[in-house]
């Protein structure tokens, strides 16, 4: 077949990239080979625009067993235990078919985690939708939420945390990021690096169909009016089969049959075989007529590029074939030896003994293009908001407006659709700052959470990047966990656009800075570019997924007030930073100015002090302050608990609006029983922590002296109506 310009374009390759392929191969590729190049060289698999920036991220630490470069990151939580986790995007498929897109997103990230030997113990997600008034938003929300639940519930892994946001920047391009967390024994971690020649390459799992062909290139292209045409590539998830695959893999992993194992994710058989061979500096030969197919007459091209779900590739030790086959048979799954490792360094593809294609592996991996794309830096915005110039809104009205807004409303409409309790180790379900999952059969636990702050990142990417890592850190501290490491999903617009590339580079600088300072390394992640339609790009939305450790779980601490007449302490300084705040956005539709600055020294000191107090059992409840400021955080602590508050207005106050709604960073609210107060103050003073005693808890009413008083029942109602009315 003649490779025309049109074919090259349809494969998402530029003319220069094609010329480079010809040069590297020293000949023209055939269509199968071109398809393979396009799959491996697209943005999604090759990280061609992001790679030089990702290198900057701190990935090391005493707690890190495996950083980026494998299917997922691995950290040490003491004893024999390791935690394996990663986050991944499934934005484009979810926009096209929300239920299946989200479901297969969950399925895909689970495979990344159990392919390394972990039993998944928690699922999280970060979902961003367009404005609620946009005609598509409601059905996207419904579809995505039931898709996430549908997959996780069926396979039986609790979905325990996440975030849900609405903003018109996602009108034409929603974000669906899924994170999976698993537990493994340190001595039983499996990697994807092939070793040894002539080893059996085994295909296990579901059969291959025509679904998802070109999915990886779809994830690397902007949407346009013709996106509808790409629909047939949508994959259907089969969580039941994944459950079987999970159990079969974990069963096989009990002994030492496996040399290397890799899930078939984006670009399916192509990327999994290339990745395993490339890491082992080996060749791989596949006999494609052996591939289990669902449809008749599938071509080698279709088999190599199919993104059918629930499949894995395994390289087996000699003599283990029958043993392994028995296990997969028990679980009713296909198990076929489809090839072997070689010493040629080539990807060799045969179909009924005909050579269909042959490409040196290194051309697909290490010779893949790397772009140092141009980028522009962003200045710190200087516009200031003067409260005095704005129409006055009563404090109470402003608070109710925030609490009833889609972004701040209670999310139980969503989380009630997720099984949060299956596996019986969920000690803190969704709703608090982080979820807490006990390690099965032990008395330690991990805390997990995901966060993003797109408007901060849009306004000033560097500060935004720093802020989001810090917020994640704070959330883990708030449930009494020592933050250990993060995974990140970097959702950005078109990297060929200088400003977008600038947002990317600078966000990463900010992330790097915070991670380094807080000893909170990045162990895995994913980049999703081209989030936008017709040159309208989304706001930069890096999503951070963090994991922390609770060494001994006595009683999980959360954000809900526990008693009457307890002292409320505010940790950290309040300056009243209103630019980019939720207050201005919800009440005045103003989004301007710079995001709040993060002082990493304060961040660290405050956080460590809070963690210390929690570990000493001196705290009844804790909550970090984020979007919506102090008053929003206080009301969140009341809603759902049986207690209100009585807060004194601070004396040196310039404006109560700034004090109560300012989004200054590094702050926490702690509830303390009177009997612990002396001890707590002693510790805070000894560590030079700035704090204020701002009031105490009381029955029934949420009260700011001289400003507002409302019953906690009313507060609850206001906070719980939006989803039910939408």
């Amino acid at each position: 077949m003649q490779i025309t310009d049109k074919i090259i374009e349809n494969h998402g390759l530029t003319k220069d990239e094609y010329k480079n392929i010809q040069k590297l191969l020293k000949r023209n590729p055939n269509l199968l080979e071109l398809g393979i190049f396009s799959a491996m060289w697209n943005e999604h698999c090759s990280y061609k625009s992001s790679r030089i920036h990702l290198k900057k991220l701190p990935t090391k630490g005493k707690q890190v067993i495996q950083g980026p470069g494998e299917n997922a990151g691995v950290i040490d939580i003491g004893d024999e235990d390791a935690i394996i986790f990663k986050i991944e995007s499934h934005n484009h498929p979810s926009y096209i078919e929300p239920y299946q897109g989200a479901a297969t997103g969950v399925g895909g990230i689970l495979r990344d985690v159990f392919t390394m030997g972990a039993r998944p113990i928690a699922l999280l997600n970060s979902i961003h939708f367009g404005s609620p008034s946009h005609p598509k938003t409601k059905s996207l929300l419904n579809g995505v939420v039931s898709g996430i639940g549908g997959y996780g519930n069926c396979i039986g892994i609790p979905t325990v945390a996440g975030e849900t946001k609405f903003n018109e920047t996602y009108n034409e391009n929603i974000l669906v990021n899924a994170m999976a967390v698993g537990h493994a024994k340190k001595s039983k971690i499996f990697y994807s690096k092939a070793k040894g020649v002539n080893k059996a390459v085994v295909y296990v799992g579901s059969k291959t169909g025509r679904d998802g062909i070109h999915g990886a290139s779809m994830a690397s292209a902007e949407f346009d009016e013709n996106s509808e045409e790409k629909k047939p590539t949508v994959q259907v998830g089969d969580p039941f089969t994944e459950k079987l695959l999970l159990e079969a893999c974990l069963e096989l992993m009990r002994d030492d049959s496996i040399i290397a194992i890799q899930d078939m994710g984006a670009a399916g058989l192509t990327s999994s075989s290339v990745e395993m061979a490339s890491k082992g500096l080996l060749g791989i030969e596949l006999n494609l007529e052996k591939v289990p197919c669902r449809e008749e007459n599938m071509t080698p091209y279709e088999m190599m590029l199919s993104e059918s779900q629930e499949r894995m590739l395994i390289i087996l030790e000699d003599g283990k074939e029958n043993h392994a086959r028995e296990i997969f048979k028990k679980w009713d799954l296909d198990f076929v030896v489809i090839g072997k490792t070689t010493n040629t360094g080539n990807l060799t593809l045969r179909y009924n003994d005909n050579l269909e294609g042959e490409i040196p592996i290194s051309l697909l991996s290490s010779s893949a293009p790397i772009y140092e794309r141009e980028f522009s830096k962003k200045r710190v915005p200087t516009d200031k908001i003067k409260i005095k110039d704005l129409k006055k809104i009563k404090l109470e009205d402003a608070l109710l407006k925030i609490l009833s807004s889609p972004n701040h409303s209670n999310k139980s409409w969503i989380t009630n659709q997720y099984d949060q309790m299956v596996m019986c180790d969920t000690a803190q379900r969704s709703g608090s700052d982080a979820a807490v999952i006990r390690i099965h059969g032990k008395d330690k636990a991990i805390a997990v959470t995901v966060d993003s702050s797109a408007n901060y990142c849009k306004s000033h990417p560097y500060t935004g990047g720093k802020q989001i890592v810090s917020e994640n850190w704070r959330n883990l501290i708030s449930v009494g966990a020592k933050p250990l490491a993060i995974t990140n999903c970097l959702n950005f617009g078109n990297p060929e656009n200088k400003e977008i590339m600038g947002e990317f580079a600078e966000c990463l600088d900010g992330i790097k800075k915070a991670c380094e300072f807080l000893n909170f390394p990045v162990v895995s992640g994913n980049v999703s570019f081209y989030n936008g339609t017709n040159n309208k790009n989304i706001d930069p939305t890096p999503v951070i997924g963090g994991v922390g450790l609770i060494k001994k779980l006595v009683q999980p601490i959360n954000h809900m007030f526990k008693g009457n007449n307890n002292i409320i302490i505010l940790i950290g300084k309040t300056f009243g930073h209103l630019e980019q705040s939720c207050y201005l956005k919800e009440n005045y539709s103003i989004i301007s100015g710079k995001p709040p600055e993060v002082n990493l020294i304060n961040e660290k000191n405050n956080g460590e002090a809070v963690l210390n107090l929690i570990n000493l059992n001196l705290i009844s409840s804790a909550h970090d302050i984020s979007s919506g400021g102090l008053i929003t955080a206080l009301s969140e602590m009341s809603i759902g608990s049986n207690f209100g508050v009585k807060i004194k207005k601070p004396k040196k106050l310039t404006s109560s609006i700034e004090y109560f709604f300012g989004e200054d960073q590094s702050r926490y609210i702690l509830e303390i029983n009177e009997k612990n107060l002396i001890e707590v103050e002693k510790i805070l003073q000894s560590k030079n922590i700035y704090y204020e005693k701002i009031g105490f808890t009381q029955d029934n009413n949420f009260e700011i002296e001289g400003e507002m008083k409302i019953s906690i029942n009313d507060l609850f109602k206001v906070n719980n109506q939006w989803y039910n009315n939408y």
Partner: protein
Amino acid sequence: MNSSVIVFPGSNCDRDIAVALEKMQFKNKMVWHKETKLPKSDLIVIPGGFSYGDYLRSGAIAGKSLIIDEVIKAAKSGCLILGICNGFQILTETGLLKGTLLRNRNLKFINKDVNIKVINNKTSFTSKYKLNQILKINIAHNEGNYFTDKDHLNKLKNENLIAFQYCDVNGNISDQSNPNGAVENIAGIYNSKKNILGMMPHPERMVDNLISNTDGINLFASIMN
């Protein structure tokens, strides 16, 4: 006491129930669905989950598996059988319990803690509870909307075969305290001989204060008695 937990492809609360049983001092065995013999058991549990993905109808395909014939035999000889969630669905598909579980009336999966009331405390499963005691138990299902015909419903009432009903914190049984649309707020039922209990709520999730509460413990303690 000896218990057996039947494991189907797609069961996913099998480990949870095993942990609870062992905690309550049962000698427990896991039984794979392809097996044709049951170990000697005083209690057989069909656990929750999504056997066969809930494809076709929840519980339908598991209801056809090899081991089910053994379960039916055991049931006839008086062995205690407990079906939780998907296990309840499977029991109705095999005919061991009458009625069926339709989709939740809001067509959504529901996971939350709900209150249920102990309607009959004179059975092997509930003797340690007080009559009308209100429990807080977690539910997690797509199809928990119990339905049965009038005759059977009357029989359930007349012969005191309703095990639990959904209620509110104060014990009121009303439409508002009905999470899924089940007829008469039914959350669990017995067969006529009361040796088989099917229930949608998950008692095995409520045996540990660190995770939830201990309202499920007395179910297992009753059986142990």
